[in-house]
């Protein structure tokens, strides 16, 4: 097998692993923000490496890690350039899907800013800043809505 074949074969395996994780898990998470949170949760905080037992068993640890990394980046790219109104709608749907107290969740998101850890390694600096800024504003808008302010979520 030539080095080229080997590279192609690895790329194919990563591609298959990506399709696998999409079919089995990601497509079942309806909100893209939820997909981002899920993918970030598969990453080790210290090493930045991705782990998924099922995917590693079907492919290999290395291929699974690379597939998850690429998938994470893809989902982030999509979200980083999403209009603010859509981010607000997604955040609302994501918080609803948690079945927790909305006010409490919003307060946690405002103070702890957990969305900071969902950013993939290697993403562009300005894209990261735009994403974080959009989520921060989205949290503020939903918090204002919670307090009874008229907010046109889902209108446009």
């Amino acid at each position, binding site marked *: 097998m030539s080095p080229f074949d080997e590279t192609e074969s690895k790329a194919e395996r990563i591609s298959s692993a990506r399709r696998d994780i999409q079919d089995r898990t990601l497509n079942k998470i309806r909100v893209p923000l939820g997909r981002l949170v899920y993918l970030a949760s598969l990453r080790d905080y210290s090493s930045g490496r991705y782990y998924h037992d099922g995917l590693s068993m079907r492919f290999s640890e290395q291929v699974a890690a690379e597939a998850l990394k690429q998938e994470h980046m893809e989902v982030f*790219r999509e979200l*980083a*350039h999403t*209009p*603010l*109104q859509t981010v*607000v709608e997604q955040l609302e749907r994501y918080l609803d899907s948690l079945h927790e107290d909305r006010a409490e969740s919003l307060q946690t998101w405002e103070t702890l800013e957990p969305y900071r850890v969902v950013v993939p390694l290697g993403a*562009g*600096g*300005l*894209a*990261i*800043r*735009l994403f974080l*800024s*959009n989520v*921060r*504003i989205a949290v*503020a*808008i939903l918090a*204002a809505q919670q307090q009874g*302010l*008229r*907010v*046109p979520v889902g*209108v*446009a």
Partner: protein
Amino acid sequence: MSGIALYLAGGLLLAGCLLRIILDGRAEDEFSNPFCRTGSTSFSGQSDTELSSQLFGSEDWRYVASVGSRKIEREFLRARKTLALAWVHAAKTEAFALMNAHRVAARTSTHLDLFVELRITLAYASFVFLCMLLNLVIRIRGPVELQVLVKLADSRSERLYEIVGQVFPVAQTFDEGFNGMQAARRGRQ
């Protein structure tokens, strides 16, 4: 006499503004704006186009304005202003690096054409001027609905790349790593 004083005051004010922009740019570069350094603003072409239209467009602002909260509006404008300034700064830094690469290549070249060099200098100067103008306008009225000015600066950046690319292959090599307005141009192709 009072007319001269008025012109002098205007000139001083303009010089003060320019000085502030330059100093602020340096301060942002070194301290408050770590993401705007070269290499940290990597976007593929399409995403950079999306990013610039989001930053300088009005869709998000119209939505925030419809919310009806002054506090959220202020927070939004403050954040977008910082991001837009970082974006302009990154584009300017990349063009500056291109000019540096061109200068290095020009020093060793035996086929220097003064007319072409003059065109490059003028293209660079007009691009830098537009960046400074963008910087000033963003500071004064924010980044919302500035797409026309951004496109103008983008076309100047495109022109600069075309001219440098015609003279030295270094521009093509450098183009691979360029991320600012040039990347936005690539994204539209």
